[in-house]
């Protein structure tokens, strides 16, 4: 079975007037099913660009990106949108929930775009909310919830299509230490008990400590790629 993600010689270059800025200077990486990988690095290291390309929100300038064995370069914009709605889950630092929209409807959103009927959407959404422990908040609006609760809604939303990969971009950046730990434990659980593949982007060692493997970026290249022997729990 092919890896979830396999990139070879991945480059991303932004034109800047006559000059150009190299965000990724040839990255090789494979993420196997069931991995929990943390991508670290200072700002400007290329880790966010990497996540955007892996998440099909952006295209690489050159290099190969195989997602579940398929060449992403050959996907049209619509096909990439379809993969995002069916095979990928996103969790963002700022939760990105729709305002004035109930938790349940927020969780259902990816399934709306995947074209699932509303009955089924509701059942799946409630099941995933149960997993992340916020089923009781289904009817609440985002502004009635704490940051931790909102991030759990976002995590439930990322789970609804049983994604091949969850991309978490600084998921704890807006949370306090205790809540951060709770959220990271949730990711660990999801990875350990439900075999969900997770790629976490962070610059905080405390947060990266929950992952099984830590990849560090610097100046658009992978500086190190090591298993995490001292996992936090």
């Amino acid at each position, binding site marked *: 079975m092919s890896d979830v993600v396999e990139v070879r010689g991945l480059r991303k270059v932004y034109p800047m007037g006559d000059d150009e800025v190299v965000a990724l200077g040839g990255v090789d990486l494979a993420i196997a099913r069931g991995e929990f990988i943390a991508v670290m690095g200072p700002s400007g290291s290329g880790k966010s660009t990497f996540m*955007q390309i892996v998440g099909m929100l952006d295209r690489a300038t050159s290099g190969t990106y195989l997602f579940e064995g398929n060449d992403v370069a050959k996907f049209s*914009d*619509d096909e990439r*949108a379809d993969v995002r709605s069916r095979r990928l889950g996103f969790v963002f630092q700022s939760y*990105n929930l729709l305002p004035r929209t109930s938790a349940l409807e927020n969780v259902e*959103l*990816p399934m709306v775009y*995947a074209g699932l009927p509303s009955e089924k959407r509701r059942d799946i959404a409630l099941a995933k909310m149960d997993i992340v422990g916020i089923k009781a908040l289904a009817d609440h609006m985002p502004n009635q919830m704490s940051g931790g609760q909102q991030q759990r809604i976002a995590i439930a939303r990322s789970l609804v299509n049983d994604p091949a990969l969850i991309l978490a971009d600084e998921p704890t950046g807006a949370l306090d230490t205790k809540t951060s730990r709770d959220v990271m434990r949730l990711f660990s659980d999801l990875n350990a008990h439900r075999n969900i593949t997770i790629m976490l982007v962070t610059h905080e060692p405390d947060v990266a400590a929950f992952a099984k493997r830590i990849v560090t970026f610097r100046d658009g290249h992978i500086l190190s790629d090591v298993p995490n022997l001292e996992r936090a729990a």
Partner: protein
Amino acid sequence: MNLRATLRLAVQALVRNKVRSLLTMLGIVIGVAAVIITVAIGAGARVSVQQSIASLGSNLIVVQPGSVTQGGVRTGFGGASTLTPQDGPAVAQLPGVAAVSPIVSVHSQVVAGGNNWQTQITGVAPTYTYIKAWPLASGRFLSESDVASIAKVAVLGQTVVSQLFPNGSSPIGKTIIIKGSPFTVIGTLTAMGQSGMGQDQDDVVLIPYSSAMERLTGLTTVNLLLISATTAAQVNPVQTEVTALLARRHRIVPPQPYDFQVRNLQAFAQAASSTGTVMELLLAGVAAVSLLVGGIGIMNIMMVSVTERTREIGLRMAVGARARTILNQFLTESIVLSTIGGAIGVIVGLLGTVLVAQLAKWPTLIPPGWIFASVGFSAMVGIFFGYYPAQKAAHLSPIEALRFE
């Protein structure tokens, strides 16, 4: 994404911003209501113009004497003296003819007491007020016995009344002198105003046509025959019948030219009616401008909405919305706004029309086609003005949209 799901997304988004949605709609509401009200007033005015033209004689048929040639010089129509008062009763027998009046016109000075006035003296039959739909203001009109007895009686138009009797006293029973003959005033006509040609129709003295022939022209012929057909549809058949009848009576054998000419006023009525239509379109055009402004309002708000919801759009894209789906959602939002606004506008417009009709006592008429047209047009406004903002939303880069503060 099917239509229902898109509609649901759009309505959800609109409901989330109730006040803004309502304010945006207001522009379209006012625009559509303005269209409906102005069109209703315009159409009402056109219909009332048509009605007054009909009463002025759209059923009217005019017979003029033909042209004569004397020494190689041809006079125009009316130059010949070929119509006799006896043609009148003969024409009156034809089916579809409601009334006939011979007309004898003379321009003359009229004297009453110390005042004199140069005016039109028209010899007519008692049917004249019926044919012209011209009610009396006071007294009585000419009778058959006045015609038979060549009576020296007169009915005055309002302009003549004010010129000859400036002190406001009633002219009824007073004597006026026309070409040396004393006539007794038996009645006055209501004010008719200007004719379509700008003539003062009230500057007239009506007397029996027999008296006009006997005492003023001294001729045995009349200037015109005025014929009123029973209905507008009868005008053309009657015109044909009259032509045939007069040809027989005047013993005209083809290829001899007719010594008379028969015309009707329907062309004039059509011209007046098309003037009304132009007026109506002009009003609707003005109203359409306000609808346009409403549409620009929608575009404005949709642009703000797209900017404000940039992160939302980014998120929707991240969780799998295609560009097309985003475009459809925003487009649907603006169509829903403008269509609901249009529907409310129709209701407001109808109420406003009723109000105008009641308070200003203006004639109004709402052509049903305009109701559908204005709702349809407002939906088009939604598409037209919603497209650019929707396009802008759909072409956002998801990364930049998600990063947008």
